[in-house]
């Protein structure tokens, strides 16, 4: 703009077929406005000549007569506009065609002058105004385009409404977010377009629009809007009134798609929840491991203690045993009561020795000497060593072709012995002892079932703990030893029991195939 304020020559192209009119205009321009730098007039008497000049020269303004030998009426203006839209045009008209000139102004001419009613000053002023107006027009247009592209580039949906809630602007962001093209929405009420069928949601949305139209801004808030295809979309919406001067002109609404943000946030939330879970799990694992460790340590100490006590007791037991033997020899003729008492001591020493042996078995750390053992041999051996007491019937159930188990026969024999003796003791009134075997995925499950008193659920929990016993006589090492030995042989021990119906202890032992 400042450039135009400088004194400079204004280049004028006059397209006029009348030599007289041309002469007058040249005269008028030459007299006018010399202080500003004056005008340089080029005259063309045909449109073709004018267009040719326009094509090659930069001009500040065109003075155009609409009626030319090679073009008439508005067409003439149209051709100039088509060739040089940026050059301001002043239409020259006669008194008889003023209406046509007004029409040309409606189509983009800057002004019109009626020939004969023009003086030098008026012409000069008209030229200056035309130039200035065209410049402003260009500026406004540029500004409009700039704003339009800003709107278009914005990633958010930006929508403007008039005071009647009708859409005025619908940018590309809005097209992308809602799936409606600008053409489909402009002029329509916004709220029904972007809200779902839910009445409350729609009421809320139009309530917000009314609030904005009442002049209040709606700060960004999270909500759900709907696309053209009816699918919901998570958005942050905000609304502000548009004021032109003091007057409220409408509403601008901005919607930001937060689907991704929300997804990320939810993922983060899920992850943090999972993290909590993981921490919890890990804590539990650690706690279990700690408890296990404490338990093992306790058991190890117990094992040492058991071993030590066992060995220490064996010597005095040995002496007592010898002494009783001696007395039984030398008092062979003593009275019955004496002999009975000696036998009693002898039997109790034997019991005590058995308990000590249990302690030592528990403490023993001999590694399993594993070999392939036929299951039938294990069963036959245990029944041989522990024949059933009176009233107990033994049933064995085993398929003919069982693979041999890969275990230490002495250790598993001890386990079987403990289980069978326990079973007998659980059936003081007699019953059935069932020893059965079956293959179980490269392992052999060997069960010892009794029809005895069963085990209460309270006792079940602590069954394999050392020093836990329900027997009046016994120190509660039998099953702890069984568990240790079975596990040392790569097996597992389980128990099922129903109080009053009986118990089944199963040991699962690996075959050679499973062990390798």
């Amino acid at each position: 703009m400042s450039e135009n304020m400088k004194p400079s020559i204004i280049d004028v192209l006059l397209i006029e077929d009348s030599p007289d009119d041309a002469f007058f205009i040249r005269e008028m321009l030459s007299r006018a406005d010399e202080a500003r730098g004056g005008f340089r007039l080029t005259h063309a008497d045909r449109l073709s000549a004018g267009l040719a000049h326009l094509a090659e020269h930069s001009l500040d303004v065109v003075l155009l007569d609409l009626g030319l030998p090679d073009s008439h009426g508005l067409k003439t203006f149209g051709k100039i506009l088509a060739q040089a839209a940026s050059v301001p045009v002043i239409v020259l008209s006669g008194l008889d065609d003023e209406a046509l000139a007004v029409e040309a102004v409606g189509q983009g001419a800057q002004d019109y002058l009626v020939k004969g009613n023009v003086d030098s000053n008026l012409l000069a002023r008209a030229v200056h105004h035309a130039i200035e107006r065209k410049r402003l027009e260009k500026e406004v247009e540029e500004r409009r385009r700039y704003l339009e592209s800003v709107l278009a580039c914005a990633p958010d949906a930006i929508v403007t409404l008039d005071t009647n809630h009708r859409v005025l602007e619908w940018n590309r962001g809005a097209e992308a977010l809602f799936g409606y093209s600008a053409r489909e929405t402009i002029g329509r009420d916004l709220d029904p377009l972007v809200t779902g069928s839910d009445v409350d949601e729609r009421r809320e949305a139009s309530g917000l629009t009314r609030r904005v139209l009442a002049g209040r801004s709606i700060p960004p808030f999270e909500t759900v809007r709907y696309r053209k295809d009816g699918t919901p979309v998570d958005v942050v919406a905000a609304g502000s009134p548009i004021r032109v001067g003091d007057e409220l002109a409408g509403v601008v609404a901005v919607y930001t798609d937060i689907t991704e943000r929300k997804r990320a946030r939810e993922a983060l939330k899920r992850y943090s929840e999972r993290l909590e879970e993981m921490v919890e799990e890990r804590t539990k694992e650690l706690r279990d491991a700690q408890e296990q460790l404490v338990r093992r340590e306790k058991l190890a100490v117990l094992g040492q203690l058991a071993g030590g006590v066992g060995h220490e007791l064996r010597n005095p037991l040995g002496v007592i045993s010898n002494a009783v033997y001696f007395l039984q020899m030398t008092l062979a003729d003593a009275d019955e009561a004496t002999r009975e008492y000696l036998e009693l001591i002898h039997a109790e020493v034997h019991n005590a020795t058995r308990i000590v042996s249990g302690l030592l078995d528990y403490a023993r750390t001999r590694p399993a000497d594993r070999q392939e053992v036929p299951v039938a041999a294990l069963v036959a051996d245990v029944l041989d060593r522990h024949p059933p007491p009176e009233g107990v019937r033994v049933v064995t159930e085993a398929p003919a072709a069982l693979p041999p188990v890969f275990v230490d026969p002495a250790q598993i024999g001890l386990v079987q012995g403990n289980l069978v003796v326990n079973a007998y003791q659980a059936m003081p009134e007699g019953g059935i002892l069932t020893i059965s075997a079956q293959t179980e995925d490269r392992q052999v499950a060997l069960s010892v079932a009794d029809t005895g008193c069963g085990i209460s659920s309270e006792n079940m929990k602590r069954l394999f703990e050392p020093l836990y016993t329900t027997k009046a006589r016994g120190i509660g090492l039998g099953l702890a030893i069984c568990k240790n030995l079975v596990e040392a042989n790569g097996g597992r021990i389980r128990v099922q029991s129903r109080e009053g119906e009986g118990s089944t202890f199963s040991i699962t032992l690996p075959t050679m195939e499973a062990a390798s």
Partner: protein
Amino acid sequence: VSDALSILIVDDDRMMAKTLQDILRVNGHRTEVAHSGPEALEKVGQHHLDCVLSDIRMPGISGVELVRAIMAERSDLLLILMTAYSADSLVEEGLEEGALAVLSKPLNISPLLAFFSSVPREHCVAIVDDDPQFCKTLGDILQAQGFQVVQITDPHGVAERVEEHAEIVILDVKFNGISGLDVLREIRELRPDLPVIVVTGHKDDLEITVQRATDIGAFASLLKPIAVEQLLDLLDQACRQELTRLWQRSVGSRHAIHAS
């Protein structure tokens, strides 16, 4: 009928030693008691003993070391160890060093007494050879070594006579017209566990003879003239084998553990 034995009881637990001593005495055995390894070795030197019954774990010298020391001096002594420990690393060592067996405490006395009563006071060796000179000279040597000797020069009924008397047989394979190997076969039929040491004067067919004798089950084979040291060694081994057999018959396993 076996005689009473002379038994040394070794245990640092005095009551254990005393009770064992009383039991054995009541059963007619002669007993000595020691409460430590060195004391035991001293007694082994002083008394004519048949057997040592020793605890395995003692302060100072252990039962195993005691066995090792005695075996160096008196390999003919019967050595039995006792332990209060069921899983004792010394048990295997003791058996390897020459102990006949290891017993767990408390002792199961009756089988032990049964074993002692079955142990012969002297070992009886039958020399079966048609050469009276050979029989006599070898017989004198063995008697001097403490063996009871039966000399058999008559080829008839050898197996029956041997079965009746001998614990060990020394048999010549060239025996008065009969094949010694046939006699060996007969003996084994009557007494499959009786150790028979086969001797032969014919170096040429030694290999074949040894092979055949081994096939039939001879304990060992020797070439005449007999190297006395070697024979005594074999006799010693044969005696131990016999004692082990007796032990197994009376007591059972050489490592008797109490079943729980």
